[in-house]
């Protein structure tokens, strides 16, 4: 066909696929063929507006016009209405970039996600990709580490440890084999930022890891990816192959004479492997039991060698910091929480998705202005922040700001930035039971407070649910939580009581007002 081809973007993000994006793609191809119009489909990542997925964008003279949520059945009508020219239709959302939900975000880490073809190195480079690595190769390793430190970037996986300090420790270890590992074991319910990024802009993660290698002298990288993410796995492997072809990975990174190799390793369905020492055990091919620290992984990590362990979002944020400078990044944020955070709105929420904003906005703004309130239309009673080990926060505390210190101030933690909303039908005693059950299922078994405590915890909450002397059982549950918090070897047993304790604190009536069965 000689006629100009209109570019149509249909996300290949797993979330969009879960809502029928593949069928939409087929319908577009079929309808275009029937009408004999030239259409070229690009498979982008998701913009993160999941209530509009599949969100299809058409590149018109007036910009990229979005339509959504599109089902395969809508496609003939969209062609009929003239969507290839950006015409009106009930599903037309206007330019995606101009939607208020999108326009008010501050996307630094997610700048390209949903915009580009994730497997196109040239698309990536046209939008600022590989500028960070280029700069990293032109300065000293000390200068790279200094930039990352001054930017204030802290670990986005949940521990919030300053990234630059971790890198400096690895850098200062004696020369020899060092490793960069990426923790892509995104197991917290309510989180999907890592997945979206790996599917929508995998090269930014690859570039960030390469910079980490150049900065610390590590020549081998591993991405430890959870087995529950088969789509991300396929995309990552292809993206790594493209980066090798473009000579951005391998023996001579961008002609610098420096080596950095990278591969993906799959986890196997163990939540505990998101804990960094357990992840290292798993990468070495063993049971994912946690290691006693010290020594820190930065000193003695993978195969006993100095190792960086960073989360996907942390590493993918490095390129923009190294490219634009520490001050640029540190210019965003509040207090000691610098930069931006990709926040994930999930659960019972009307407009679920990914919101990247500078630290310092309130939970209320997130839940109501971005999230639009609950999906069920009922009042939001509680949110759980930071995954299954995170506290439940009641509606009375929704004016709390999203930053590490402000949340710690109310006994909560930000974790990986996932927020799960529950409406007023939620039974908080049942959620407490689940918290203990999850810990029992996922405990690695190495320490007793976690292994046995969680099982006893389930039993106690079950007695409470059955109305057996709830007063006494609640006291025992509180004592058990304390033992687990104080006595567990790692964060799983040590934090699994947080949702239980917060539920007991804010929703005590749910535990005490049970009727004996």
């Amino acid at each position, binding site marked *: 066909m000689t006629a100009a081809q209109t570019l149509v973007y249909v996300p290949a993000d797993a979330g969009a696929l*879960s809502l029928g994006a593949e069928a939409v793609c087929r319908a577009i191809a079929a309808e275009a063929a029937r009408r004999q119009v030239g259409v070229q489909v690009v498979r982008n990542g998701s913009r993160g507006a999941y209530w509009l997925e599949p969100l299809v964008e058409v590149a018109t003279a007036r910009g990229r016009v979005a339509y959504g949520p599109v089902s395969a059945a809508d496609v003939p009508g969209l062609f009929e209405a003239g969507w290839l020219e950006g015409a009106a239709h009930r599903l037309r959302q206007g330019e995606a970039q101009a939607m208020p939900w999108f326009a008010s975000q501050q996307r630094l880490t997610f700048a390209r996600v949903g915009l580009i073809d994730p497997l196109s190195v040239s698309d990536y480079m046209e939008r600022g990709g590989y500028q960070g690595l280029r700069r990293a190769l032109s300065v000293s390793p000390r200068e790279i580490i200094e930039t990352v430190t001054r930017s204030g970037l802290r670990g986005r996986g949940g521990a919030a440890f300053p990234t630059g300090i971790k890198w400096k420790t690895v850098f200062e270890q004696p020369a020899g084999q060092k490793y960069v590992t990426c923790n892509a074991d995104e197991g917290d319910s*309510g989180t999907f930022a890592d997945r979206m990024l790996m599917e929508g802009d995998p090269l930014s993660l690859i570039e960030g890891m390469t910079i980490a290698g150049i900065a610390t002298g590590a020549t081998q990288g591993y991405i430890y990816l959870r087995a529950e993410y088969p789509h991300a796995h396929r995309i990552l492997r292809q993206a790594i192959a493209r980066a090798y072809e473009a000579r951005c990975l391998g023996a001579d990174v961008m002609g610098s004479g420096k080596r950095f190799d990278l591969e993906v390793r799959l986890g196997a369905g*163990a939540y505990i492997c998101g804990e960094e020492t357990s992840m290292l055990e798993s990468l070495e091919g063993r049971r994912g039991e946690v290691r006693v620290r010290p020594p820190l992984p930065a000193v003695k990590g993978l195969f006993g060698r100095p190792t960086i362990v960073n989360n996907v979002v942390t590493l993918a944020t490095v390129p923009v910091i190294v490219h634009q400078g520490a001050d640029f990044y540190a210019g965003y944020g509040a207090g000691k929480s610098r930069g931006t955070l990709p926040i994930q709105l999930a659960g019972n929420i009307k407009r679920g998705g990914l919101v990247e904003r500078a630290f310092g906005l309130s939970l209320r703004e997130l839940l109501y202005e971005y999230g639009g309130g609950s999906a069920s239309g009922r009042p939001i009673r509680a949110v759980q922040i930071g995954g299954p080990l995170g506290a439940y926060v009641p509606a009375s505390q929704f004016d709390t700001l999203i930053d590490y210190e402000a949340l710690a101030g109310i006994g909560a933690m930000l974790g990986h930035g996932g927020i799960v909303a529950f409406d007023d039908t939620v039974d908080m005693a049942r959620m407490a039971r689940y918290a203990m059950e999850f810990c029992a299922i996922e405990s690695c078994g190495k320490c007793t407070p976690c292994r046995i405590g969680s099982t006893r915890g389930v039993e106690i909450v079950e007695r409470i649910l059955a109305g057996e002397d709830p007063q006494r059982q609640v006291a025992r549950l509180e004592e058990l939580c304390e033992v687990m918090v104080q006595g567990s070897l790692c964060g799983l047993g040590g934090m699994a009581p947080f949702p239980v304790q917060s539920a007991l604190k804010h929703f005590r009536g749910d535990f005490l007002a049970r009727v004996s069965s």
Partner: protein
Amino acid sequence: MQTLSSEQRDVVGRIVAEFKGRPGPLLEVLHAIQAALGYVPREAIPLVAEGLNLSRADVHGVVTFYHYFRSAEPGRHVVQVCRAESCQALGGEALADHARKRLGVEFHESTPDGRFSLEPVYCLGNCACSPAVMIDGQLHGRVTPERFDALIAETDHILEHSPEGP
């Protein structure tokens, strides 16, 4: 205890040979075996142990530590229902109950006709589209009980009789 067929032994042998020189290869070997055979047969453990110079206990310990590795042959289709918080917030527990009834099995079981295995999963990363289900590696979002039934029917459209039985 069943013995491995000669084809299965060959598959395991080839996989071990392919990965043995790599650093920390055991998980990769187990993934490759499960991808090829659908599960990690107990009888494969001595072969893997010998090939990688590990003890049988080491290999058994790893296979049983990880939820993803199966020691028994699964049904033709693997249905995973997410049971984590985000899905619970939008009816995930009711969906899990429905799935059990519809397939007539508990979690971790297969239907007697070998068509379906039902497995719990703790987060598929589709939390903005809860509740989520994965069938044979295909992700589905906002799954209602009705949609679940439709997906099951699509997955096995030669289903003449319901596994719920007469």
